[in-house]
């Protein structure tokens, strides 16, 4: 089991109901996409937040990554909706 800090923003944060947490991930979670699928098994709040997986953006150590990116070595993984700044 690997321990990772997860941070959530905007409506992902609101739906999950917390801004950050530290989780132990099973070895089967290899990619960012695996992580999304895993989180959805943890409860309704995660299911609601991550329902449309394809729109969820992932950043590892504060850099954008594709869902196919491996998460090994990640200190911090962020999940959030498409950005609307500017």
């Amino acid at each position, binding site marked *: 089991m690997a321990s990772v800090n997860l*941070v959530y*923003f*905007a*409506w992902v*944060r609101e739906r999950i109901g917390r801004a950050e947490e530290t989780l132990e991930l099973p070895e089967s979670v290899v990619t960012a996409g695996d992580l999304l699928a895993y989180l959805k098994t943890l409860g309704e709040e995660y299911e609601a937040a991550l329902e449309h997986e394809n729109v969820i953006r992932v*950043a590892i150590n*504060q*850099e*954008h990554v594709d869902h196919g990116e491996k998460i090994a070595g990640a200190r911090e993984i*962020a999940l*959030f*909706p*498409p*950005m*609307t*700044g*500017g």
Partner: protein
Amino acid sequence: MIGVAVTVRVQRGDFDLAAEVAALSAGRHDIGAVVTFCGLCRDEAGTLSALELEHYPGMAEAEITRICNEAVARFDLQAATAVHRYGKILPGENIVLVVTASPHRQAAFDGANFIMDFLKTAAPFWKKEHAADGSAGGWVSAKDEDDSARDRWSE
């Protein structure tokens, strides 16, 4: 690109357009063009009372810096500044400032335009609307046209 100054700040308070331009161009005699872009909060014909801007501290600064550095490398920029606010912002108030300097006018225009297009689609900020009538506002949806604006730079 020696001497190219990239300045990025993410802050709650307002920024000072003139001070940012002065900081970027002071004492230089080689700049031919300075372009600034200010994005402001619109009241949407009176229906909006405020925007609440959430951001990802650390990554916001890092991502905007990456965008500015790419603009400097891609265009003929002598300097680039970007300041993005977060927190509650009222109609008429500033949200974001971009300043670019170049020997040539089109590069300064393109640099600022490029930075704004990527800032909109890649910098980790999210806007929530507060409705003037007190009804529940909502998160602003990302626009396809913003993705299109970004994608034209890779055509």
